[in-house]
């Protein structure tokens, strides 16, 4: 091999090496720009006055709830619902007169009509009633 051939061979080898280095560099760059999978947000908790924490991550992630709009709570067990409502019928001694001034929530369900005086459910906020096999919640 003469000197000219040897020089060409070295140049080719240098170019090949340079190509490999560039390829590796580009490949390295592409790894660096791959999107990083972020961990799921949360968990997010809200704490009641008893100290118990409740997981509201689902509400925040799926419904965009904002925990700053929650007030304080004594906890979900602080105020039980009315679960054994006693209903009175027309003609009963404690049935209110037609002109009684009271606000009601009322329902006509399957032909049976029932009314619930707001003043009687407001303390508990919820009354759980049943119409035969059908169960309803009255909330105010």
């Amino acid at each position, binding site marked *: 091999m003469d000197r000219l051939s040897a020089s060409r061979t070295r140049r080719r080898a240098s170019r090949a090496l340079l190509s490999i280095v560039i390829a590796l560099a580009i490949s390295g760059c592409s790894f660096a720009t791959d999107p990083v999978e972020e961990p799921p947000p949360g968990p997010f908790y809200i704490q009641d006055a008893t100290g118990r924490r409740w997981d509201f991550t689902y509400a925040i992630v799926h419904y965009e709830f904002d925990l700053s709009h929650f007030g304080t709570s004594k906890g979900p067990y602080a105020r039980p619902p009315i679960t054994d409502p006693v209903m009175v019928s027309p003609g009963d001694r404690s049935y209110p007169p037609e*002109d009684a001034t009271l606000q009601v929530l009322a329902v006509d369900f399957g032909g049976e009509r029932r009314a619930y005086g707001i003043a009687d459910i407001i303390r508990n906020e919820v009354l759980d009633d049943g119409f035969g096999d059908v169960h309803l919640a009255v909330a105010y």
Partner: protein
Amino acid sequence: MYSREIDGRALTITTSGWTYYNQHMLFDHETESFWFHMEGTNDLTCVAGHYAGRKLRGVPSHYGPWHVWVAEHPDSKILKSQQR
């Protein structure tokens, strides 16, 4: 007013004690899920807990003065009051 039946069971619905945007957040004792009446719907949506994403159907109801209701429904029963 809402159905409190889901997956063949009746839930005990109560108040959670919390309000969100001044609207009560409800809660069920059986699964400790939280239920909320989302704007633009008639139903309760479970926003946290076991039934997250599920709904309890809203039931049409009347809210107003007793005299209006009873005039239209003279056979209506009414919750026995502790105050009358």
